[in-house]
């Protein structure tokens, strides 16, 4: 599997474990294919369900809210799942294959983010530019949500192997850390839209916090190990 993008990652010296493990665990092709199909199906399920309900005229009493919530939740959950890949993979070399799904999951998060934004543009602002500007200026939850989406745009645009090559692994990775901030903005967006006193966003907030803290812990551990090596 001579993937040029991966080679460039190796050359730039970052994410060593990433590539090493990528090559070391050549997954059975059939299993991988089955997993890919499963991930596609799971990722398409929220949209499929909406379409099914929509065509059956069964989107519930408040269809606008149904579509808004479904696309919003799909975006946030997929973003958080995408951010779970790296910490999970670090738990065991045998989980290295997980990284093969990261781009797919991230792109699906962006896809649902676009649908969510489109829902707002169409069903809330009625494609009225004035109303949109007014909303962004006045309403901080819209600003937070829009920022979360905006941060994903360059990431989706640079998601190709060609982009990774062009940018170089290190810079590409640095750019893609924007995902953290997008997810944080997404969670803030959620807190700002629910009524004061309502605690429903707590679960996703805690999950995201754990995933981000896991990265901090990893960095600290690496630094400690490096110092130990230097000392030895």
């Amino acid at each position, binding site marked *: 599997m001579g993937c040029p993008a991966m080679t460039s990652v190796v050359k730039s010296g970052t994410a060593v474990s990433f590539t090493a493990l990528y090559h070391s665990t050549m997954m059975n092709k059939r299993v991988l294919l089955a997993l890919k199909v499963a991930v596609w199906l799971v990722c398409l399920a929220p949209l499929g369900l909406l379409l099914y309900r929509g065509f059956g005229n069964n989107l*519930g*009493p*408040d*269809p*606008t809210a149904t579509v808004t919530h479904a696309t919003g939740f799909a975006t946030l959950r997929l973003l958080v799942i995408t951010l779970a890949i790296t910490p999970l993979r670090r738990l065991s070399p045998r989980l290295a294959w997980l990284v093969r799904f990261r781009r797919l999951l991230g792109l699906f998060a962006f896809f649902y983010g676009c649908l969510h934004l489109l829902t707002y543009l169409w*069903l809330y602002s009625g494609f009225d530019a004035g109303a949109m500007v007014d909303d962004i200026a006045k*309403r901080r939850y819209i600003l937070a949500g829009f920022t979360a989406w905006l941060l994903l745009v360059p990431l989706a645009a640079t998601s190709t192997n060609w982009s990774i090559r062009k940018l170089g692994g290190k810079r590409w990775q640095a750019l893609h850390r924007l995902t953290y901030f997008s997810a944080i903005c997404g969670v803030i967006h959620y807190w700002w*839209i629910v009524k*004061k*006193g309502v605690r429903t966003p707590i679960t996703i907030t805690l999950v995201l916090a754990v995933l981000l803290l896991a990265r901090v812990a990893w960095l600290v551990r690496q630094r400690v190990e490096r110092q130990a090596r230097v000392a030895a």
Partner: protein
Amino acid sequence: MLIKKSNEIPSSEITPKSVYLNRRTFMTGAAALGAVGLGVDRVAGMLEPQDEVEAAATKLQTVKSPLSTSGLELTSYKDITTYNNFYEFGVEKGDPAANAGHLKTRPWTMTVDGLVKQKKTVGIDELLSFRPIEERVYRHRCVEAWSMVIPWAGYSLSELINWAEPLPKAKYVQFLSLKDSAAMPGLQQIDLDWPYSEGLRMDEAMHPLTLLTFGLYGEVLPNQDGAPVRLVVPWKYGFKSAKSIVKIHFTSDQPRTAWNEMAPREYGFYSNVNPNVDHPRWSQKSERRIGASIFSQRQPTLMFNGYGDQVASLYNGMDLKKNF
């Protein structure tokens, strides 16, 4: 002979809208009449009192009212009873319908106290037979920018207030809802200062449109809609209409009200429906009609929810942007 079939004219165009809307109104009326005829349904419940038959729909005898809003398409019974904000039973719209089953609405008493001649307590059956129950179709506008059209059943709150004999010092009325931790799982989920409280200025409470409500669609209120007795103030956002009321308290000063206390910037004491005053987090210019198709849900919000002719004079000389 060639018979040409034309599919170009939708049936709604053939029947003038006013006619088919009237037909709907007529049918609602017919249903209500039918309800009168079947007014002995309660016997079934009396036969087996140990059963929780009380939860089953019970018909109410209703009379027509000139204060009912006409010409509107009613929201379906299903939507009115499955899409609720009743935080005592959870924050999701389906939670009240799922969780309100344990609410015991009988026996039920309501206490009238504070600045009244004499504190009084009245049972729900006495309240039900106190005045004729009228059917009042009202627009219902939630502060969250969705709306319904609901055929409520009740009588003007003013009837009860007159009976309560408030003292001249009484300038406000506070409504307190039931707080029953055993039956209400939402009490632990949300940090509102329970019991739920709401309030009106005396002249608002005395306005004939302000309805002491016992039913909808000609039947007693389902638990999730605020059984057995609630308030409906059609020109104000829905949260002003307290549900499952156990106490009416007369005061000289503006009483504490739950949401206003929680987030005063977002929920004013008055909370009159007003398309010109945005909620800090969203526009109130338009609303989503519940039950409509996703393509036609959005519609403009009316000043005082369309009841300006009747209630605007209550607020003469008041800055409604300040007193939102």
